[in-house]
């Protein structure tokens, strides 16, 4: 199966006012194997969204390499995305702004189908089935849907391009709590069913725990711990991971205030 993503010692630097620089991503390496679900967790400002954007070619690299099936992923600038990189697709945080408000849902999914190789092309109906939406949704506009439904549409659109790697950058952060776990699980299922691997980025550790096979914990631009989900949860080795896990309030009804 194709679609191996290799990230090696990646640095991304932002310029700040004056001569100062911010190393948003500061030497990150990891592999995403075909069919694998990797959860990337960390708090705001840790560089996880920058990393996601880098993988999709939306941020220039200061150093290091991102390779997709042996070919380098480079920053796009104003150029059209090269064909092989269309096999990396992204689902953004806010489905209110990532869908075009003036085009019908079906047309937007069609756009994605058009870039899939003809032999593997799915259909709008099948994609809507996959994300558990009514087929009639194709004729409607984004504003006629709730946030959770819109995110399903965004997932359907991303999957329409037949990606080998699906990147979700906080795809559930703007959804209702009762929906978050549901949409996250759906994303995992849809990706795996279609043979894609999933990089699931979230600040919500409890959701990552359910969705991911492996988890990487990011802090201040670096990955401080990585391993199988159960191992990291039950025996975190890094102090930051431990602090992060301890801060999650448990719904045990005991009035236990999490450690600050």
């Amino acid at each position: 199966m194709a679609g191996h993503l290799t990230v090696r010692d990646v640095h991304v630097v932002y310029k700040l006012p004056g001569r100062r620089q911010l190393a948003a991503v500061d030497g990150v390496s990891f592999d995403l194997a075909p069919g694998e679900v990797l959860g990337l967790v960390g708090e705001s400002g840790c560089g996880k969204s920058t990393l996601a954007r880098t993988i999709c070619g939306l941020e220039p690299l200061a150093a290091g390499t991102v390779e997709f099936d042996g070919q380098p992923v480079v920053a796009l600038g104003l150029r059209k995305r090269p064909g092989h990189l269309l096999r990396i697709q992204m689902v953004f945080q806010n489905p209110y702004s990532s869908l075009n408000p003036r085009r019908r849902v079906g047309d937007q999914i069609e756009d994605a189908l058009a870039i899939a190789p003809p032999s593997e092309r799915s259909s709008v109906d099948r994609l809507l089935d996959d994300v558990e939406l009514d087929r009639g949704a194709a004729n409607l506009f984004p504003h006629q849907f709730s946030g959770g439904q819109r995110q399903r549409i965004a997932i359907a659109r991303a999957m329409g391009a037949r990606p080998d790697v699906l990147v979700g950058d906080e795809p559930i952060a703007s959804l209702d709590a009762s929906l978050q776990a549901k949409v996250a699980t759906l994303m995992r299922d849809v990706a795996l069913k279609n043979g894609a691997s999933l990089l699931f980025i979230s600040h919500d550790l409890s959701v990552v725990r359910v969705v991911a096979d492996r988890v990487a914990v990011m802090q201040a631009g670096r990955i401080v711990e990585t391993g199988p989900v159960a191992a990291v949860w039950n025996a975190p080795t890094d102090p930051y991971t431990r602090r992060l896990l301890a801060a999650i309030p448990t719904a045990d009804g005991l009035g236990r205030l999490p450690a600050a």
Partner: protein
Amino acid sequence: MAEYSADTQPREVPPVAPDARGLRLRGLTLELGAKGAAKQILRGIDLDIPAGSITGLAGESGSGKTMTGLAICGLQPAGSRLGGTISYTGPRGSAPNLLALKPRAMNALRGREVAMIFQDPTASLHPMMTIEGQLTDGMRHHLKVSRTEARSRALALLERVKVPEPATALKKYPHQFSGGQLQRISIAIALSSEPSVLIADEPTTALDVTVQAGILRLLRELCDSLDLAVLLVTHDLGVMSALADTVTVMRYGEVVEHGTRYQVIREPRSEYTRALIDALPHPPAEEGSTPAPGALPPTPTRTDLR
């Protein structure tokens, strides 16, 4: 750790005396839209929000929990019709029914006795006004204090909510702070006129877990030390379990369950509450990976709070 044992958790909500300090909602209804085609947003809410206690309001979006908080502050959408009563008993006076108050009286009460904090502090603070301006505005209006007095109170408040370097912070603008610091600042603003009731609508939903933990501790400490009546609106049952003393679960504008946090979260009586708890992300049951409640690192007790 004895404090966190299940055996010591109250199972019954202590009775609230009719003249106890706090808010008392009885048969609160809210109707939106034209008569005839009206939509019932709230269908008769009974709720006590006593002083010195955190009353949790849970439910999915659309259940009416936010609308309940807004109605208490008189901030319900224009054109809506309210019914029932909200009575208020405070240290400086009481009102038998907030809904019957004239606008002038309500204005004097809102912000003064009943303060509110919201989910997104970046949206609820004024982007072009300094922190000092926003902190002292309400104080000067409600408490009629001098500019110098207001400034020194503002400093004390920022210290109280643990914003670093309060003197510098006063001169800054909202965009210069992180989300967690901004939420601390909006709590300071809410407390600036020394209210007795605090409505907190999803106060930590926009924050990271470690930042959230700090805000939860701050809210608990403020409630205990200032004898605040806190209404905590949140969909996060983890937050609810950490902070609320009693929990009321709403659905379709009705109360489906009301009890102590332990009873509602651990021994829910209604099907709906059970479903809500089951919808939480649960770890896959495999290789005995589910940690026992005690497996997480120990949490300091309430007396450890600084």
